[in-house]
Protein backbone atom coordinates (compact mmCIF):
# COMPACT_ATOMS: atom_id res chain seq x y z
CA UNK A 1 0.00 0.00 0.00
CA UNK A 2 1.38 3.38 -0.96
CA UNK A 3 0.96 6.57 1.03
CA UNK A 4 -2.72 7.16 1.38
CA UNK A 5 -3.96 10.68 1.96
CA UNK A 6 -5.96 11.45 5.07
CA UNK A 7 -9.28 9.65 4.73
CA UNK A 8 -12.24 10.19 6.99
CA UNK A 9 -13.82 6.79 6.40
CA UNK A 10 -17.52 5.93 6.32
CA UNK A 11 -20.03 7.24 8.88
CA UNK A 12 -19.73 5.48 12.24
CA UNK A 13 -23.12 3.84 11.85
CA UNK A 14 -22.02 2.03 8.70
CA UNK A 15 -19.26 0.01 10.41
CA UNK A 16 -19.95 -3.69 10.39
CA UNK A 17 -20.41 -5.52 13.65
CA UNK A 18 -19.40 -9.13 14.16
CA UNK A 19 -22.20 -11.38 15.34
CA UNK A 20 -21.31 -14.81 16.64
CA UNK A 21 -23.74 -17.72 16.55
CA UNK A 22 -22.23 -20.96 17.81
CA UNK A 23 -24.97 -23.18 16.29
CA UNK A 24 -24.33 -21.63 12.86
CA UNK A 25 -20.59 -22.06 13.37
CA UNK A 26 -21.05 -25.74 14.17
CA UNK A 27 -23.22 -26.28 11.09
CA UNK A 28 -20.53 -24.68 8.91
CA UNK A 29 -17.87 -26.80 10.57
CA UNK A 30 -19.79 -30.00 9.88
CA UNK A 31 -19.93 -29.11 6.19
CA UNK A 32 -16.15 -28.91 6.17
CA UNK A 33 -15.51 -32.16 8.05
CA UNK A 34 -13.86 -33.66 4.92
CA UNK A 35 -11.24 -30.89 5.19
CA UNK A 36 -10.64 -31.74 8.83
CA UNK A 37 -10.05 -35.35 7.83
CA UNK A 38 -7.77 -34.28 4.98
CA UNK A 39 -5.67 -32.11 7.31
CA UNK A 40 -5.24 -34.98 9.77
CA UNK A 41 -4.30 -37.29 6.92
CA UNK A 42 -1.82 -34.69 5.67
CA UNK A 43 -0.14 -34.55 9.06
CA UNK A 44 0.46 -38.29 9.11
CA UNK A 45 1.42 -38.40 5.44
CA UNK A 46 4.00 -35.67 5.79
CA UNK A 47 5.27 -36.15 9.33
CA UNK A 48 7.41 -39.24 8.87
CA UNK A 49 8.49 -38.64 5.28
CA UNK A 50 12.28 -38.71 5.01
CA UNK A 51 12.70 -40.10 8.53
CA UNK A 52 14.29 -43.48 9.33
CA UNK A 53 12.26 -44.42 12.41
CA UNK A 54 8.98 -43.37 10.83
CA UNK A 55 5.92 -44.22 12.89
CA UNK A 56 8.09 -45.37 15.83
CA UNK A 57 8.54 -41.69 16.72
CA UNK A 58 4.96 -41.68 18.01
CA UNK A 59 5.98 -43.87 20.98
CA UNK A 60 9.51 -42.55 21.51
CA UNK A 61 8.36 -39.39 23.32
CA UNK A 62 6.18 -41.03 25.99
CA UNK A 63 8.77 -43.75 26.63
CA UNK A 64 11.57 -41.22 27.00
CA UNK A 65 9.51 -39.12 29.42
CA UNK A 66 8.60 -42.23 31.37
CA UNK A 67 12.26 -43.23 31.72
CA UNK A 68 13.17 -39.78 32.97
CA UNK A 69 10.32 -39.85 35.45
CA UNK A 70 10.99 -43.30 36.86
CA UNK A 71 14.78 -43.05 36.92
CA UNK A 72 15.21 -39.47 38.08
CA UNK A 73 12.10 -38.52 40.00
CA UNK A 74 11.32 -41.83 41.62
CA UNK A 75 14.85 -42.97 42.48
CA UNK A 76 16.35 -39.57 43.31
CA UNK A 77 13.44 -37.53 44.61
CA UNK A 78 11.75 -40.56 46.18
CA UNK A 79 8.17 -39.42 45.66
CA UNK A 80 5.51 -41.15 47.72
CA UNK A 81 2.99 -43.10 45.64
CA UNK A 82 1.76 -45.52 48.29
CA UNK A 83 1.40 -49.10 47.15
CA UNK A 84 1.44 -48.25 43.47
CA UNK A 85 4.22 -48.97 41.04
CA UNK A 86 5.67 -45.58 40.07
CA UNK A 87 6.09 -46.30 36.34
CA UNK A 88 2.40 -47.11 35.89
CA UNK A 89 1.41 -44.29 38.24
CA UNK A 90 3.37 -41.77 36.18
CA UNK A 91 2.53 -43.16 32.75
CA UNK A 92 -1.24 -43.00 33.29
CA UNK A 93 -0.78 -39.24 33.86
CA UNK A 94 1.80 -38.72 31.15
CA UNK A 95 -0.68 -39.96 28.53
CA UNK A 96 -3.25 -37.16 29.00
CA UNK A 97 -0.57 -34.55 29.66
CA UNK A 98 1.36 -35.40 26.48
CA UNK A 99 -1.91 -35.28 24.55
CA UNK A 100 -2.75 -31.85 25.94
CA UNK A 101 0.75 -30.44 25.51
CA UNK A 102 1.11 -31.61 21.91
CA UNK A 103 -2.39 -30.42 20.95
CA UNK A 104 -1.71 -27.00 22.43
CA UNK A 105 1.84 -26.50 21.21
CA UNK A 106 1.07 -27.51 17.61
CA UNK A 107 -2.57 -26.42 17.44
CA UNK A 108 -1.87 -23.10 19.13
CA UNK A 109 0.51 -22.12 16.35
CA UNK A 110 -1.48 -23.68 13.54
CA UNK A 111 -3.11 -20.48 12.23
CA UNK A 112 0.20 -18.63 12.18
CA UNK A 113 1.99 -21.48 10.43
CA UNK A 114 -0.86 -21.86 7.92
CA UNK A 115 -1.29 -18.13 7.41
CA UNK A 116 -1.24 -18.37 3.61
CA UNK A 117 -4.12 -20.82 3.55
CA UNK A 118 -5.96 -18.99 6.36
CA UNK A 119 -6.10 -15.83 4.24
CA UNK A 120 -7.19 -17.62 1.08
CA UNK A 121 -9.77 -20.29 1.79
CA UNK A 122 -13.43 -19.91 2.69
CA UNK A 123 -13.48 -22.83 5.12
CA UNK A 124 -14.06 -22.12 8.82
CA UNK A 125 -10.58 -21.45 10.18
CA UNK A 126 -11.01 -23.64 13.27
CA UNK A 127 -10.29 -26.69 11.10
CA UNK A 128 -6.57 -25.93 11.47
CA UNK A 129 -6.31 -25.97 15.29
CA UNK A 130 -8.89 -28.76 15.53
CA UNK A 131 -6.91 -30.97 13.18
CA UNK A 132 -4.00 -30.89 15.64
CA UNK A 133 -6.28 -31.89 18.51
CA UNK A 134 -7.30 -34.89 16.40
CA UNK A 135 -3.67 -35.69 15.55
CA UNK A 136 -2.70 -35.52 19.23
CA UNK A 137 -5.61 -37.81 20.05
CA UNK A 138 -4.41 -40.43 17.57
CA UNK A 139 -0.90 -40.22 19.07
CA UNK A 140 -2.54 -40.60 22.48
CA UNK A 141 -4.14 -43.89 21.49
CA UNK A 142 -0.87 -45.16 20.03
CA UNK A 143 0.79 -44.41 23.36
CA UNK A 144 -2.09 -46.10 25.23
CA UNK A 145 -1.22 -49.29 23.38
CA UNK A 146 1.97 -49.45 25.49
CA UNK A 147 -0.03 -49.61 28.68
CA UNK A 148 -0.64 -53.40 28.69
CA UNK A 149 3.11 -54.01 28.36
CA UNK A 150 3.72 -51.71 31.31
CA UNK A 151 1.12 -53.52 33.41
CA UNK A 152 2.79 -56.86 32.70
CA UNK A 153 6.29 -55.57 33.53
CA UNK A 154 5.18 -53.91 36.76
CA UNK A 155 2.97 -56.76 37.86
CA UNK A 156 0.02 -54.43 38.42
CA UNK A 157 -3.42 -55.19 37.04
CA UNK A 158 -6.01 -52.67 35.88
CA UNK A 159 -9.10 -52.52 38.08
CA UNK A 160 -12.65 -53.25 36.86
CA UNK A 161 -13.54 -49.61 37.50
CA UNK A 162 -11.18 -48.75 34.62
CA UNK A 163 -14.29 -48.97 32.45
CA UNK A 164 -15.10 -45.42 33.64
CA UNK A 165 -12.26 -44.22 31.40
CA UNK A 166 -14.37 -42.64 28.59
CA UNK A 167 -15.63 -40.02 31.03
CA UNK A 168 -12.29 -38.41 31.99
CA UNK A 169 -11.20 -38.82 28.35
CA UNK A 170 -14.16 -36.81 27.18
CA UNK A 171 -13.32 -33.99 29.59
CA UNK A 172 -9.70 -34.20 28.48
CA UNK A 173 -10.60 -33.79 24.81
CA UNK A 174 -13.01 -30.94 25.53
CA UNK A 175 -10.44 -29.15 27.69
CA UNK A 176 -7.74 -29.40 25.04
CA UNK A 177 -10.17 -28.27 22.33
CA UNK A 178 -11.26 -25.19 24.27
CA UNK A 179 -7.71 -24.22 25.17
CA UNK A 180 -6.43 -24.71 21.62
CA UNK A 181 -9.28 -22.67 20.08
CA UNK A 182 -8.64 -19.83 22.50
CA UNK A 183 -4.85 -19.86 22.17
CA UNK A 184 -4.69 -20.24 18.38
CA UNK A 185 -7.04 -17.32 17.68
CA UNK A 186 -5.46 -14.99 20.23
CA UNK A 187 -1.97 -15.79 18.90
CA UNK A 188 -2.91 -14.46 15.45
CA UNK A 189 -3.32 -10.98 16.94
CA UNK A 190 -1.01 -11.22 19.94
CA UNK A 191 2.08 -13.13 18.87
CA UNK A 192 3.75 -12.70 22.25
CA UNK A 193 1.66 -15.66 23.36
CA UNK A 194 3.30 -17.81 20.68
CA UNK A 195 6.69 -17.11 22.26
CA UNK A 196 5.34 -17.71 25.77
CA UNK A 197 3.58 -20.98 24.95
CA UNK A 198 6.53 -23.40 25.39
CA UNK A 199 7.33 -21.78 28.74
CA UNK A 200 3.70 -21.96 29.87
CA UNK A 201 3.57 -25.64 28.94
CA UNK A 202 6.71 -26.40 30.96
CA UNK A 203 5.27 -24.60 33.96
CA UNK A 204 1.98 -26.42 33.38
CA UNK A 205 3.68 -29.79 33.75
CA UNK A 206 4.72 -28.85 37.29
CA UNK A 207 1.31 -27.33 38.03
CA UNK A 208 -0.35 -30.64 37.15
CA UNK A 209 -0.19 -33.84 39.22
CA UNK A 210 1.78 -35.86 36.68
CA UNK A 211 4.99 -36.68 38.54
CA UNK A 212 3.28 -36.49 41.91
CA UNK A 213 -0.16 -37.43 43.28
CA UNK A 214 -2.89 -35.01 44.19
CA UNK A 215 -3.09 -36.52 47.71
CA UNK A 216 -0.12 -34.34 48.66
CA UNK A 217 -2.74 -31.61 49.11
CA UNK A 218 -5.53 -31.24 51.65
CA UNK A 219 -9.01 -32.27 50.56
CA UNK A 220 -10.12 -28.63 50.21
CA UNK A 221 -7.10 -27.63 48.14
CA UNK A 222 -7.60 -30.64 45.88
CA UNK A 223 -11.02 -29.30 44.89
CA UNK A 224 -9.62 -25.81 44.28
CA UNK A 225 -6.85 -27.38 42.21
CA UNK A 226 -9.43 -29.15 40.01
CA UNK A 227 -11.38 -25.92 39.47
CA UNK A 228 -8.30 -24.05 38.26
CA UNK A 229 -6.55 -26.89 36.46
CA UNK A 230 -9.01 -29.34 34.89
CA UNK A 231 -6.14 -31.69 34.07
CA UNK A 232 -5.75 -32.35 37.81
CA UNK A 233 -9.28 -33.73 38.04
CA UNK A 234 -8.87 -35.71 34.82
CA UNK A 235 -5.60 -37.35 35.85
CA UNK A 236 -6.76 -38.09 39.38
CA UNK A 237 -9.91 -39.72 38.01
CA UNK A 238 -7.85 -41.91 35.67
CA UNK A 239 -5.58 -43.01 38.53
CA UNK A 240 -8.46 -43.70 40.89
CA UNK A 241 -10.47 -45.75 38.40
CA UNK A 242 -7.78 -47.58 36.43
CA UNK A 243 -5.23 -48.24 39.20
CA UNK A 244 -7.07 -48.07 42.51
CA UNK A 245 -10.39 -49.69 41.68
CA UNK A 246 -12.38 -46.72 42.95
CA UNK A 247 -15.34 -45.00 41.34
CA UNK A 248 -14.55 -41.56 39.83
CA UNK A 249 -13.81 -38.85 42.45
CA UNK A 250 -16.80 -36.72 41.49
CA UNK A 251 -15.80 -33.86 43.78
CA UNK A 252 -12.73 -33.41 41.52
CA UNK A 253 -14.05 -34.47 38.10
CA UNK A 254 -17.12 -32.22 38.53
CA UNK A 255 -15.18 -28.96 38.93
CA UNK A 256 -12.86 -30.02 36.07
CA UNK A 257 -15.82 -30.62 33.79
CA UNK A 258 -17.43 -27.31 34.79
CA UNK A 259 -14.31 -25.25 34.05
CA UNK A 260 -13.86 -27.19 30.82
CA UNK A 261 -17.41 -26.44 29.65
CA UNK A 262 -16.94 -22.72 30.21
CA UNK A 263 -13.56 -22.81 28.48
CA UNK A 264 -14.86 -24.75 25.49
CA UNK A 265 -17.87 -22.48 24.87
CA UNK A 266 -15.89 -19.34 25.65
CA UNK A 267 -12.91 -20.40 23.56
CA UNK A 268 -15.08 -21.16 20.55
CA UNK A 269 -16.90 -17.85 20.97
CA UNK A 270 -13.64 -15.89 21.13
CA UNK A 271 -12.37 -17.79 18.07
CA UNK A 272 -15.43 -16.95 15.96
CA UNK A 273 -15.36 -13.36 17.19
CA UNK A 274 -11.74 -12.95 16.09
CA UNK A 275 -12.03 -14.99 12.88
CA UNK A 276 -13.26 -12.20 10.53
CA UNK A 277 -10.08 -10.18 11.14
CA UNK A 278 -7.66 -13.08 10.68
CA UNK A 279 -7.23 -12.62 6.93
CA UNK A 280 -6.14 -9.01 7.52
CA UNK A 281 -3.11 -9.88 9.60
CA UNK A 282 -2.30 -13.46 8.57
Amino acid sequence: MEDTPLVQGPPRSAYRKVRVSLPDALRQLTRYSPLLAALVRREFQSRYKQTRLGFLWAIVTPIALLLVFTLVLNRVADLQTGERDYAVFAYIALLPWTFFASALSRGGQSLVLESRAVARIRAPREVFPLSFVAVALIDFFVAVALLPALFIISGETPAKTALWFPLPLLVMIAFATGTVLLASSVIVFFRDLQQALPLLLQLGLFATPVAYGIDLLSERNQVLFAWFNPMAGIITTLRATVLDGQSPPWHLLGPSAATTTVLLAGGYWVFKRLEPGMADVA
Partner: protein
Amino acid sequence: MSRNGAVEVANLWKRFRPDRKRASIFYDGRHIFRNLRGLQWRWALQDISFSIEPGESVALVGFNGSGKSTLLKILYGVMQPTAGHVAVGGRPGALIEVDAGIHPQLTGRENVHLWGAMLGLRRREVLERFDDIVQFANINDAIDRQTKFYSSGMRMRLGFAVAATLDPDILLVDEVLAVGDEVFQRRCLEQLRQLNANGTTIIYVTHDLATIAPLCDRAIWIDNGAVRADGPAADIVSSYIAAADERLNAGEAF
Protein backbone atom coordinates in the same frame (compact mmCIF):
# COMPACT_ATOMS: atom_id res chain seq x y z
CA MET B 1 -30.43 -13.32 -2.06
CA SER B 2 -29.00 -12.25 -5.38
CA ARG B 3 -29.30 -14.22 -8.58
CA ASN B 4 -26.60 -16.78 -9.28
CA GLY B 5 -23.63 -15.11 -10.87
CA ALA B 6 -24.62 -11.55 -9.95
CA VAL B 7 -22.38 -9.26 -7.90
CA GLU B 8 -23.64 -6.26 -5.99
CA VAL B 9 -21.24 -3.94 -4.17
CA ALA B 10 -22.44 -0.76 -2.47
CA ASN B 11 -20.45 1.79 -0.43
CA LEU B 12 -17.73 -0.70 0.38
CA TRP B 13 -14.95 0.38 2.74
CA LYS B 14 -11.96 -1.56 4.00
CA ARG B 15 -9.25 -0.42 6.34
CA PHE B 16 -6.05 -2.02 7.58
CA ARG B 17 -4.33 -1.44 10.88
CA PRO B 18 -1.96 1.50 11.13
CA ASP B 19 1.78 0.96 11.06
CA ARG B 20 3.24 1.01 14.53
CA LYS B 21 6.39 3.03 14.54
CA ARG B 22 9.17 1.33 16.41
CA ALA B 23 12.80 2.28 16.14
CA SER B 24 14.30 -1.12 16.89
CA ILE B 25 13.22 -4.57 17.97
CA PHE B 26 14.24 -3.63 21.50
CA TYR B 27 11.49 -2.00 23.49
CA ASP B 28 12.07 1.14 25.46
CA GLY B 29 9.10 0.27 27.62
CA ARG B 30 6.60 2.75 26.27
CA HIS B 31 5.71 0.60 23.25
CA ILE B 32 4.27 -2.25 25.22
CA PHE B 33 1.15 -0.47 26.35
CA ARG B 34 0.69 1.96 23.50
CA ASN B 35 -2.54 1.26 21.64
CA LEU B 36 -3.65 2.14 18.16
CA ARG B 37 -5.61 5.25 19.07
CA GLY B 38 -4.43 8.41 17.40
CA LEU B 39 -2.70 6.48 14.63
CA GLN B 40 -3.87 6.72 11.06
CA TRP B 41 -5.73 3.69 9.65
CA ARG B 42 -4.89 2.85 6.07
CA TRP B 43 -8.06 2.90 3.97
CA ALA B 44 -7.47 0.35 1.21
CA LEU B 45 -10.97 0.65 -0.27
CA GLN B 46 -13.01 3.83 -0.13
CA ASP B 47 -16.69 3.86 -0.93
CA ILE B 48 -16.62 1.35 -3.80
CA SER B 49 -19.91 0.68 -5.60
CA PHE B 50 -20.68 -1.31 -8.74
CA SER B 51 -22.87 -4.15 -9.89
CA ILE B 52 -22.18 -7.01 -12.28
CA GLU B 53 -24.81 -9.02 -14.17
CA PRO B 54 -24.70 -12.82 -14.38
CA GLY B 55 -22.50 -13.99 -17.24
CA GLU B 56 -20.57 -10.74 -17.54
CA SER B 57 -16.81 -10.77 -17.82
CA VAL B 58 -15.17 -7.81 -16.14
CA ALA B 59 -11.52 -6.80 -15.86
CA LEU B 60 -10.18 -4.94 -12.85
CA VAL B 61 -7.24 -2.69 -13.67
CA GLY B 62 -5.21 -0.34 -11.52
CA PHE B 63 -1.69 0.46 -10.37
CA ASN B 64 0.06 -1.62 -7.68
CA GLY B 65 -1.48 -1.08 -4.28
CA SER B 66 -4.73 0.35 -5.61
CA GLY B 67 -6.82 -2.26 -3.76
CA LYS B 68 -7.69 -4.78 -6.50
CA SER B 69 -6.59 -7.86 -4.58
CA THR B 70 -8.28 -6.66 -1.40
CA LEU B 71 -11.49 -6.21 -3.36
CA LEU B 72 -11.24 -9.73 -4.80
CA LYS B 73 -10.66 -11.25 -1.36
CA ILE B 74 -13.74 -9.47 -0.03
CA LEU B 75 -15.83 -10.66 -3.00
CA TYR B 76 -14.58 -14.21 -2.42
CA GLY B 77 -15.55 -13.93 1.25
CA VAL B 78 -12.18 -14.65 2.84
CA MET B 79 -11.81 -11.04 4.00
CA GLN B 80 -14.49 -8.98 5.73
CA PRO B 81 -15.20 -5.37 4.73
CA THR B 82 -15.08 -2.65 7.37
CA ALA B 83 -18.33 -1.12 6.12
CA GLY B 84 -20.70 -1.49 3.21
CA HIS B 85 -22.78 -4.06 1.38
CA VAL B 86 -21.53 -7.03 -0.66
CA ALA B 87 -23.75 -9.65 -2.26
CA VAL B 88 -22.30 -12.42 -4.39
CA GLY B 89 -24.88 -14.80 -5.85
CA GLY B 90 -24.17 -18.51 -6.10
CA ARG B 91 -20.94 -20.40 -5.57
CA PRO B 92 -17.80 -18.29 -5.95
CA GLY B 93 -14.54 -19.78 -7.11
CA ALA B 94 -11.18 -18.08 -6.94
CA LEU B 95 -7.88 -18.34 -8.70
CA ILE B 96 -6.00 -16.27 -6.14
CA GLU B 97 -2.50 -17.48 -5.25
CA VAL B 98 -3.58 -20.96 -6.23
CA ASP B 99 -0.53 -22.59 -4.67
CA ALA B 100 -1.44 -21.26 -1.20
CA GLY B 101 -2.71 -24.61 -0.01
CA ILE B 102 -0.01 -26.72 -1.64
CA HIS B 103 2.03 -28.48 1.04
CA PRO B 104 5.69 -29.08 0.07
CA GLN B 105 6.11 -32.36 1.97
CA LEU B 106 3.14 -34.01 0.25
CA THR B 107 3.07 -35.58 -3.17
CA GLY B 108 1.09 -34.04 -6.00
CA ARG B 109 -1.62 -36.66 -5.55
CA GLU B 110 -1.94 -36.03 -1.80
CA ASN B 111 -2.02 -32.30 -2.49
CA VAL B 112 -4.86 -32.58 -4.99
CA HIS B 113 -6.98 -34.21 -2.28
CA LEU B 114 -5.97 -31.64 0.34
CA TRP B 115 -6.49 -28.57 -1.85
CA GLY B 116 -9.80 -29.98 -3.06
CA ALA B 117 -10.94 -30.37 0.55
CA MET B 118 -9.84 -26.80 1.32
CA LEU B 119 -12.06 -25.62 -1.53
CA GLY B 120 -14.99 -27.52 -0.02
CA LEU B 121 -15.03 -30.73 -2.08
CA ARG B 122 -15.69 -34.17 -0.64
CA ARG B 123 -13.11 -36.91 -1.20
CA ARG B 124 -15.37 -38.64 -3.72
CA GLU B 125 -15.81 -35.42 -5.69
CA VAL B 126 -12.06 -35.00 -5.87
CA LEU B 127 -11.63 -38.59 -7.08
CA GLU B 128 -14.19 -38.02 -9.84
CA ARG B 129 -12.21 -35.04 -11.13
CA PHE B 130 -8.77 -36.46 -10.44
CA ASP B 131 -7.86 -37.52 -14.00
CA ASP B 132 -9.06 -34.22 -15.48
CA ILE B 133 -6.99 -32.31 -12.95
CA VAL B 134 -3.80 -34.24 -13.64
CA GLN B 135 -4.31 -33.93 -17.35
CA PHE B 136 -5.00 -30.20 -17.23
CA ALA B 137 -2.01 -29.53 -14.97
CA ASN B 138 0.09 -31.63 -17.37
CA ILE B 139 2.22 -33.28 -14.68
CA ASN B 140 1.35 -36.92 -15.34
CA ASP B 141 4.58 -38.62 -14.31
CA ALA B 142 5.32 -36.26 -11.39
CA ILE B 143 1.99 -36.76 -9.60
CA ASP B 144 3.52 -39.06 -6.97
CA ARG B 145 6.53 -36.82 -6.33
CA GLN B 146 6.73 -34.49 -3.31
CA THR B 147 5.74 -31.01 -4.45
CA LYS B 148 8.82 -29.40 -2.94
CA PHE B 149 10.68 -30.97 -5.87
CA TYR B 150 8.27 -29.33 -8.34
CA SER B 151 9.18 -26.23 -10.28
CA SER B 152 7.20 -23.10 -9.33
CA GLY B 153 5.31 -23.39 -12.61
CA MET B 154 4.30 -26.98 -11.86
CA ARG B 155 3.02 -26.03 -8.39
CA MET B 156 1.03 -23.17 -9.89
CA ARG B 157 -0.43 -25.41 -12.60
CA LEU B 158 -1.48 -28.02 -10.06
CA GLY B 159 -3.21 -25.39 -7.89
CA PHE B 160 -4.89 -23.83 -10.91
CA ALA B 161 -6.08 -27.20 -12.21
CA VAL B 162 -7.79 -28.08 -8.91
CA ALA B 163 -9.44 -24.68 -8.56
CA ALA B 164 -10.51 -24.55 -12.21
CA THR B 165 -12.52 -27.81 -12.06
CA LEU B 166 -14.92 -26.46 -9.42
CA ASP B 167 -17.46 -25.06 -11.89
CA PRO B 168 -18.35 -21.94 -9.86
CA ASP B 169 -21.04 -19.39 -10.70
CA ILE B 170 -18.52 -16.59 -10.33
CA LEU B 171 -14.82 -16.97 -10.97
CA LEU B 172 -12.36 -14.50 -9.46
CA VAL B 173 -8.98 -14.51 -11.18
CA ASP B 174 -5.97 -12.70 -9.72
CA GLU B 175 -2.71 -12.64 -11.66
CA VAL B 176 -2.33 -16.38 -11.58
CA LEU B 177 -1.38 -16.76 -15.19
CA ALA B 178 1.85 -14.82 -14.78
CA VAL B 179 3.88 -17.82 -13.64
CA GLY B 180 2.87 -20.45 -16.20
CA ASP B 181 4.58 -20.74 -19.56
CA GLU B 182 3.07 -19.49 -22.82
CA VAL B 183 1.34 -22.81 -23.54
CA PHE B 184 -0.24 -23.00 -20.11
CA GLN B 185 -1.29 -19.33 -20.18
CA ARG B 186 -3.10 -19.79 -23.46
CA ARG B 187 -4.81 -22.95 -22.21
CA CYS B 188 -5.95 -21.08 -19.09
CA LEU B 189 -7.31 -18.14 -21.05
CA GLU B 190 -9.12 -20.55 -23.35
CA GLN B 191 -10.58 -22.29 -20.28
CA LEU B 192 -11.73 -18.93 -18.87
CA ARG B 193 -13.34 -18.00 -22.20
CA GLN B 194 -15.21 -21.30 -22.30
CA LEU B 195 -16.45 -20.95 -18.73
CA ASN B 196 -17.66 -17.45 -19.54
CA ALA B 197 -19.39 -18.67 -22.69
CA ASN B 198 -21.22 -21.23 -20.52
CA GLY B 199 -22.53 -18.47 -18.30
CA THR B 200 -19.94 -18.15 -15.54
CA THR B 201 -19.35 -14.58 -14.40
CA ILE B 202 -15.66 -13.73 -14.53
CA ILE B 203 -13.80 -11.01 -12.66
CA TYR B 204 -10.28 -10.80 -13.95
CA VAL B 205 -7.39 -8.90 -12.36
CA THR B 206 -4.30 -8.54 -14.49
CA HIS B 207 -1.42 -6.27 -15.46
CA ASP B 208 -1.13 -8.06 -18.79
CA LEU B 209 -3.42 -5.63 -20.61
CA ALA B 210 -3.23 -7.53 -23.91
CA THR B 211 -5.13 -10.45 -22.39
CA ILE B 212 -8.10 -8.26 -21.42
CA ALA B 213 -9.60 -7.55 -24.84
CA PRO B 214 -10.16 -11.19 -25.89
CA LEU B 215 -11.78 -12.07 -22.55
CA CYS B 216 -13.58 -9.03 -21.13
CA ASP B 217 -16.21 -6.63 -22.46
CA ARG B 218 -16.13 -4.36 -19.47
CA ALA B 219 -13.43 -2.99 -17.20
CA ILE B 220 -13.38 -1.23 -13.85
CA TRP B 221 -10.41 0.98 -13.02
CA ILE B 222 -9.57 1.06 -9.33
CA ASP B 223 -7.33 3.96 -8.34
CA ASN B 224 -6.16 4.54 -4.78
CA GLY B 225 -8.98 2.45 -3.37
CA ALA B 226 -11.78 4.10 -5.32
CA VAL B 227 -13.53 3.44 -8.64
CA ARG B 228 -11.98 5.87 -11.12
CA ALA B 229 -13.75 4.64 -14.24
CA ASP B 230 -16.17 1.89 -15.26
CA GLY B 231 -17.08 1.12 -18.85
CA PRO B 232 -16.22 -0.74 -22.08
CA ALA B 233 -12.91 -2.60 -21.69
CA ALA B 234 -11.20 -0.98 -24.67
CA ASP B 235 -11.93 2.60 -23.49
CA ILE B 236 -10.88 1.95 -19.91
CA VAL B 237 -7.67 0.21 -20.91
CA SER B 238 -6.64 3.05 -23.21
CA SER B 239 -7.27 5.74 -20.62
CA TYR B 240 -5.44 3.60 -18.05
CA ILE B 241 -2.45 3.39 -20.39
CA ALA B 242 -2.64 7.15 -20.90
CA ALA B 243 -2.54 7.67 -17.12
CA ALA B 244 0.49 5.39 -16.84
CA ASP B 245 2.28 7.41 -19.55
CA GLU B 246 1.43 10.58 -17.72
CA ARG B 247 2.87 9.20 -14.48
CA LEU B 248 6.08 8.21 -16.20
CA ASN B 249 6.43 11.59 -17.93
CA ALA B 250 5.81 13.40 -14.67
CA GLY B 251 8.76 11.44 -13.29
CA GLU B 252 6.64 10.26 -10.43
CA ALA B 253 8.42 7.85 -8.17
CA PHE B 254 6.65 4.57 -7.51
